[in-house]
């Protein structure tokens, strides 16, 4: 075995020591990673939505990293992390604390209003910006929090979009509909949709004859509701329902040959892939609302949607569009803040001015936040379903077609 001399030992030790001392300095010269957290449901009842939000958020981070990272931070790379809420508000709270502990400079989530309510409390207490893109309950921004921002419209805005469009259709064709009913699940958003519809119906001159909520976990038979609406001559039926409930309600309407002049959904199941796949032609002419559409003329949408499809082998939908939107706000704000300090980042988010299509911002019609954290530009779209596709019918600037009025009868 070759023996090492004392001189060689001293020389190599000195080199090793110098290397050890220099390494942190050299590393310090490189930009530090920027941890961003997505707190979403990967398991439990909201898992499908959570996974899509995370897919988009992750893809957004990777695309920015491929383009050289955050330029104002010397090319710092984004480091996305996902934490599972298990579709439970308590876990969402504890996962928010974990994200903070792991150094997340900003958070998005949770696709579940009750979980977002708890998670944003923690974010506020720890002074970490929280941007939610798909939660529509008004309670979230009602608490005067400084670190909570929402890009999407609230549930009332969607109800107004839908009912205003139906009113326009009636007026333009000379066949107005007045008798309205709402049938929603008894979740926090479902109940909010009922309250919102009461207000909007009064505002637009509808006669709200029935407003029902049902327990989504236990209701499998909607025949009693549909028979009641048929008997009462309800001309417009709307609701906020889970995909499986929306499918069951539509099938029951067909079975009982109930033909309202308009039938539609406020967010929820009617804009899900599951709904159109399960019903095929029976889903045609159903109206629905979200804040994003695959057929809208949004700059960069086609390219982004293709990349999303290539990577995840599924269509980009409104939930994944929400994931890109939340990411866009954070990316834009990080560039403007030039800092990972959470308070400076919060101020940058508050000063956001983004157009749809800019920096992967997919929701309509851009973002500019009010002091409450609500997006003053937020707006929704109304669609009609045709051959398993959602076709935009309102507002006019995005419309690609006009919905059939009244809705064709079953078998027509």
């Amino acid at each position, binding site marked *: 075995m070759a023996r090492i001399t004392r001189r060689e030992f001293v020389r190599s030790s000195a080199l090793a020591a110098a290397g050890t001392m220099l390494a942190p300095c050299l590393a310090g010269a490189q930009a530090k990673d920027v941890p961003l957290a997505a707190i979403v449901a990967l*398991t439990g009842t909201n898992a499908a939505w959570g*996974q899509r939000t995370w897919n988009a958020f992750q893809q957004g981070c990777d695309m920015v990293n491929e383009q050289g990272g955050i330029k104002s931070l010397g090319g710092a790379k984004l480091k996305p992390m996902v934490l599972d809420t298990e579709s439970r508000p*308590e876990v969402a709270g*504890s996962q928010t*604390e974990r994200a*903070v*502990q792991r150094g997340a400079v900003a958070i998005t989530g949770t696709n579940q209003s009750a979980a977002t309510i708890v998670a944003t*409390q923690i974010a506020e*207490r720890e002074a970490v910006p929280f941007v939610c893109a798909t939660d529509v*309950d008004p309670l979230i921004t009602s608490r005067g929090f400084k670190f909570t921002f929402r890009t999407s419209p609230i549930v009332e805005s969607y109800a107004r979009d839908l009912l205003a469009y139906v009113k326009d259709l009636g007026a333009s064709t000379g066949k107005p509909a007045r008798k309205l009913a709402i049938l929603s699940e008894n979740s926090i958003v479902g109940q909010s949709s009922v309250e919102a519809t009461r207000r909007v119906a009064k505002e637009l001159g509808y006669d709200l004859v029935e407003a029902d909520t049902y327990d989504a976990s236990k209701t499998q038979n909607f025949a009693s509701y549909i028979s009641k609406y048929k008997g009462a001559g309800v001309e417009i039926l709307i609701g906020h329902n889970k995909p499986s409930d929306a499918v069951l309600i539509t099938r029951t309407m067909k079975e009982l040959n109930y033909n309202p002049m308009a039938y539609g959904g406020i967010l929820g199941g009617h804009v899900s892939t599951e709904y159109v796949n399960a019903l095929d032609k029976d889903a045609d002419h159903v109206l629905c609302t979200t804040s994003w559409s695959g057929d809208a003329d949004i700059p960069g949408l086609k390219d982004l949607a293709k990349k999303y499809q290539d990577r995840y082998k599924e269509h980009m939908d409104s939930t994944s569009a929400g994931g890109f939107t939340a990411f866009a706000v954070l990316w834009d704000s990080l560039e403007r803040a030039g800092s990972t300090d959470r308070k400076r980042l919060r101020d940058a988010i508050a000063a956001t001015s983004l157009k749809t299509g800019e920096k992967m911002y997919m929701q309509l019609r851009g973002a500019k936040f009010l002091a409450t954290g609500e997006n003053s530009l937020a707006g929704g779209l109304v669609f009609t379903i045709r051959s398993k596709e959602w076709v935009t019918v309102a507002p006019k600037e995005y419309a690609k077609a006009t919905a059939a009025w009244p809705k064709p009868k079953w078998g027509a």
Partner: protein
Amino acid sequence: MSARLALGLAALAAAAAAPLVAGQHLLTAFIVALHAAYMALAWNVAAGYAGQFSLGHSLFYGIGAYASTMLYLKLGLTPWAGMFAGAVLAGLVGVALALGVYRYNVRGIFFALVTLGAAEVAKGLADNWDWIKGPVGILLTMKNAPGEFFFLRREPYYYVALAMVVAMILISLRLERSRLGQYFLAVREDEAAAEASGVDTHRAKTVAIGLSAALTAFAGSFYAQFYLYISPDTVLVFEPQLTMMLGTMVGGAGTALGPVLGSVLFSGLGEALRNLPFENTRQVVIGSKLVYAILLIVILIYLPGGLITLGRRSRRA
């Protein structure tokens, strides 16, 4: 001082010192574990000691949460007092339910089903009761007001939860040594024999349910003050009931320390599995849940008396 007492005091001292070393997130995990332990101990009074296997304790949990919250919002009553009012109300509901159920001699699995039904009815009522905001739920303001049981930091919540668990252990130990506790055990072991020995079994069972219900309500009030948001979907669902049962059955039903052991183990395990040192993808999350479920099955098969029996086994060996 006996070795057991010394060990207990040392554990208490260690628990009291935990906030000095734990960060906010770890402290939350401890609070969640203590809250689960308290719930398990409260359910243990009826199910563990008296053998009344209720599946409807979420009802009493929900009453506690809503009572202290509504009394605070509508009458300005501090939740410190409101939680006692909630306990009284839950206790009365528990007694009323027990009187009705035992009047018709409903036992065993049928008793469990009736209590489960009662909790379901309560959720249905809460969902449709506008005064308590139905399914939308109630928000409490995040603020620092110690007199009203609101804190911005985790430490005070931790000490409240710790005090609740210590008090509940002392209540359980006292119960074990009391005449009432002996009645409970007699009912659990053989109701007919207990009755033949002169035990008023209907009364003992009713007291067990009422007492357990009242104690459970405190956990509901704590939930409301800690999470600052309650709705039928968070406090009147089966989830709290499951937490109570898991902790008790895994740790050891009918003992004062078993439910604590079981709850702490399972809360800790759940927390550890959420904290795996690699990317938290959906596959990892589902895998960790599988591990959790398998461990539960293994414990229930090989230690049917709960983890607490491990100590007894080793002493016998």
